[in-house]
């Protein structure tokens, strides 16, 4: 970007100028699936909650575009918040009573993930499915890096126990 005749580069993240319009269409195409998978896991397979949380986050981002500098991070955080609020409002224990329609190939994984806390699930997916580093996971989840490490450590250990330690090629 250009500012006062000097090319500005941002380190750790390439930023769009705050006043620039955001390309939500591209964001939805490129980042939407990752956000969806993360929130889907965060909710423990609550497809309805995840669907609404992701859609609501994009809707709010579009509505408040002018005031958002980093829409991706913003959308992640809003999606987490909306999902968390909804789970607290009525679905914290819903996994036991509400039908969860996981794709057959994810049945075993989702069962195991549901044994983890929501934050452990989200951290695991952001790390091992979306391929983010610790710092970026912390930014998107809105928590500290050491906390991310704790969630990852415990989540992995739990998954090892639940899914077995069998190694594959």
């Amino acid at each position, binding site marked *: 970007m250009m500012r006062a005749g000097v090319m500005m580069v941002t*380190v750790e993240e390439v930023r769009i100028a705050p006043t620039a319009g955001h390309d939500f269409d591209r964001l939805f195409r490129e980042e939407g699936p990752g956000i969806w998978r993360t929130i889907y896991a965060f909710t423990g397979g609550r497809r309805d909650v995840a669907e609404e949380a992701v859609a609501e986050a994009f809707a709010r981002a579009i509505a408040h575009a002018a005031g958002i500098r980093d829409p991706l991070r913003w959308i992640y955080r809003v999606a987490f918040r909306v999902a968390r609020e909804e789970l607290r409002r009525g*679905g914290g224990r819903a*996994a036991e009573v509400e039908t969860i329609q996981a*794709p057959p190939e994810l049945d075993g994984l989702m069962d195991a993930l549901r044994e983890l806390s929501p934050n452990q699930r989200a951290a695991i997916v952001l790390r091992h499915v979306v391929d983010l580093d610790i710092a970026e996971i912390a930014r998107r989840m809105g928590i500290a890096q050491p906390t991310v490490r704790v969630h990852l450590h415990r989540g992995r250990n739990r998954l090892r126990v639940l899914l077995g330690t069998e190694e594959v090629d």
Partner: protein
Amino acid sequence: MPERWERELRKMRGAEMPAGIRARAEEGPRGEGIPPARQRIVAATVAFAVFFGAGVFAWQALRPTEGGPGGDPGEPALTDATVTFHESGLEFDSGDPSLPSAEMTVDSQTEFGQTPRFDWRGATILMNTAGYVDPVRLPLGSRLVIAGDADAVQGLLADPTSRDPLEDVPLNGEHGYLMAEPGEYFLMFEAKWAADTVPFYFPIEVVPVQPDLGDSDAELSITGYPFEAVLSYGGQRIAAPASSGSWTTDGEGFGVETAGGGRIPEWARIVVPVGTPLELSGNWEDWRNHLHPGDSQVASNDHGSLVFPASAGTYDWRMKASWPEGEAEFTFGVDLVDASYGENSSESSSVAVSPTDEPGSEIPSVLRVRCDSQGIEVLTPIVAAQSDGLHVDAEITDLRDPEIRLRSLRANQIEYWSGSSGGYDEFVRPVPVGKSLVHCESGPQQGNGPETFEAPFEIVDPNGVFVDYSLDCRDDETVEFPSPFDFQADAETSQDPIEAVSTSVSGLLEDDVVERAGYMGSAESRFVRITRQGATIGWVYLGVRPSFGVYPLTGFACVSSGLGPA
């Protein structure tokens, strides 16, 4: 080779996003959330199926709809968690006998203890407590207060994801302190009544406390057997067990020797500014202390007040107290932090350097910044670089969508952003050594547009951790590399930074040296400099593409060097 859990997780990469999300997003925000469907209301009900002897009772307790003790993850503050045990806590309207219960109350919110299975008056009680429960957030050092009608209560802490043995939570009669590494646990209480002993489980999350370094005094309370020593300062509280001691009661003596020792873990340390006064209380008769390493101690100053010494550093503070009946030694992990650079601050007592500072260092090695809707304050205007870059602690309050932005006045082509979300934030950025500016920015404030505040500071390099890449030519003799260095998505990538630059820059002479620069202690150091006959004639900053490597993102060179993009 990947383990099975990794292979399973990879399947999620193929999980398709539902097609309806896009259309729903385009409808606009609903704001107030999802309308509660009937099944969700049902789901909010905690169902315990209770099988009592031959009879079957159903008991349901409606969870708070929102904001329970495990609710709002705001800034943690020390609190009391009162756990009340009732022998007849669960009453049933069918005329059948009642059951024992336990409730944890934190800040006026109550959570029931879970009792999956226990024996009671000759019967085995099974309760269905399946499902995830939000853990109660308890700051490290929280006081656990035991109440109710149980004859005795034992506390235990278990990591739900490990098979490690349970850790004892020392309860000194009616209370104890939660000392555990931040994380999620089951806090278990075994409550004993005449009829039976019943275990209750509470999922909890131990959260760290951010110290308020503006607090005036530290407090230490020590009491005799059963020994208890609690040190608190600035919202932090740590309890130390007696590492050794002896006690005589009714003519019989016994010794106390706690297993362990060794290094006190980081999470169990308390941060206190040097020279902080100490209030000492308790029922001791005499005491003495020693800060290790070194030979300093907490001692009286000219005014008769006890104060921590003036040498910043990481210490084990050993405190030995004695009573007519015996004595005991307690060891606290104390990080004494420097306050000498806070004199320019309006709140001098709140100025400190990070516990990550090298012991004995006179220059703070963490840039401390406070920012709110009124402006920005730099608490450490001169800061030493660390091997991996500039360490920043930022405290941002009262700003919407806040960010901290750092910019070197010498190499101002690059900005370094915090990614802050408000509150306390710690981060490291490779800001070059020299005079710099820190900006605090926010999103629009109630329709008034974004706020931006800035303040100067200077990074110094007393330990020589920074490899300089500033050009040995005047500003008006420099040129920035044009395309393809400017955000070129199709630039060549390489795993080797030197190779990436060597193949992307033209005009290199045979004896030119291409080498990494910046903070060499950072695994993500992305600067490469080009020197000719000892003079720096160009530098390149590399972008990173995960899984592919690095590529030139931007760079500058002296005009006379003849360097340019290949």
